[in-house]
């Protein structure tokens, strides 16, 4: 008769082995090293806050040490992409199938002795949320796993060893969270192509304001608030598009905008350079203004 605990244990060790094959050591800061995940054969995805030195070393699962350079980084999402001197990695296999209650493992390779791991369940899938670094995270995973020193940049894996996300303690003060693989890999794609994450920019300063009852009726939807335009950047995208101070922005590209986080989220990287419809209340009546979105520098 099989022992279910032995089977569980074997399953966990196998998950560590599979996940560990694409987990590396990232030596890029003064203190103890951190971890990284093989994104491509010569690219490592890690946490931005663990990369503070120019001379970076990455140690592979087989113990080989390679020099690396920063291929791209984004402070707001705490992600950085490192390029190795040669193609020597086995890219991680990812999964977007995450559920609350799922058994998961946080993996790290903070020293050359080998893999380290902690386990727990997924306690919540949340977001969007503003982070300690001023960025906005679309979604994040909270787990019961213990983030030991050097775990930042390492993977959260399921019981098959598939990467569900990247663990980091750099986005919250005093705790750790996991950036889901679908979010982290999307950002990594941009970092690989452009070296940074483009963010759309309109050139407006706004304040949330309540939409009066009459204006709400003219919008034909239940929206309590919008963003009153207080200032326009001279020759900025919004001014060029025809927005005025005093307009109340209520939607961007068809998405209702009630507060600054909504506007920030609407100005995704794919909007840069594109003409988007900005719906405003002007004199209490809705109007659409086409604005070519700029890039936030």
């Amino acid at each position, binding site marked *: 008769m099989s022992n279910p605990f032995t089977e569980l244990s074997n399953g966990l060790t196998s998950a560590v082995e599979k996940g560990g094959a694409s987990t590396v050591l990232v030596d890029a800061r003064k203190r103890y090293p951190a971890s990284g995940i093989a994104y491509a054969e010569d690219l490592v995805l890690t946490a931005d*806050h663990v990369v503070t030195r120019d001379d970076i070393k990455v140690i592979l699962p087989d113990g080989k040490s390679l020099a690396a350079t920063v291929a791209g980084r*984004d*402070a*707001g*999402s*705490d992600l950085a992409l490192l390029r190795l001197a040669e193609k020597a990695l086995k890219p991680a296999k990812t999964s977007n199938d995450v559920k609350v209650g799922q058994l998961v493992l946080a993996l790290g390779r903070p020293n050359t002795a080998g893999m380290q791991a902690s386990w727990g369940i997924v306690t919540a899938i949340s977001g969007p949320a*503003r*982070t*300690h*670094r*001023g*960025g906005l995270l679309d979604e994040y995973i909270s787990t019961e796993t213990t983030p030991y020193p050097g775990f930042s940049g390492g993977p959260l894996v399921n019981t098959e060893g598939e990467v569900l996300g990247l663990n980091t303690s750099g986005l919250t*003060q005093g705790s750790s969270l996991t950036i889901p693989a679908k979010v982290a890999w999307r950002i990594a794609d941009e970092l690989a192509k452009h070296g940074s994450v483009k963010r759309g*920019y*309109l*050139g*407006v*300063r*706004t*304040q*949330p304001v309540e939409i009066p009852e009459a204006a709400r009726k003219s919008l034909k939807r239940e929206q309590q608030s919008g963003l009153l335009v*207080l*200032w326009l*950047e001279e020759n*900025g995208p919004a001014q060029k598009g025809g927005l005025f101070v005093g307009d109340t922005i209520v939607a961007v590209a068809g998405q209702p905008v009630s*507060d*600054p*986080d909504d*506007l*920030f989220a609407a*100005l995704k990287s794919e909007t840069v350079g594109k003409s988007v419809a900005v719906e405003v209340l002007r004199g209490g009546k809705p109007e659409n203004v086409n604005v070519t979105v700029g890039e*936030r520098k």
Partner: protein
Amino acid sequence: MIRVLLKLSSPALRAGLQALLASDKTIKVVNDSLDEENAVDVMITSTAFASRVSEVDSPSSAAILLLSDVLSLSKGDDQPHVEEMKRSSRVWGILPTDSSAEELTAAIHALSQGLIVGAPHLLFKSESSLIERGPLTERELEVLGLLSRGLANKQIAFELGISEHTVKFHVSSIYTKLDVTNRTEAVRAGLRGGWIAL
């Protein structure tokens, strides 16, 4: 080593202060060796002198002002100048001229750490406080914008071409003016208050 510049019109006062500060080996008065390469952490000036110094002054003094935290010593009979100085974005400390060596060195150390310091009777007048809530200065708006991009103090200092010390002061001032305690709250408040452009 905390580098201190004594910007005082009275030679006697300058000499006296230099003697008072000599006992603290972590403080270096840089007046004699001042050159364009030196960065100054704390500039000590009197109210009479400081009210003539602005951020668009002559190149050498302007550079010092930009890099320095201003600790101003006020004479008892100079009270009218104190209010004017409180409105300046460069004043982070106020002490009376008869301060002891211990009070002086404590203030210099506190300022170099990004703190605001002063004798209560000079900082506070009934309900008013040294740093009033808003508006943010142009520089503080720049720093807040960079905070919203997730940059660390060191990175902000690099972007703006100022010292990390100065960035810390601006961040402290932003927190006070926006009534927040951390970067996340500062960015949120900045966005909601209409101080960060999107």
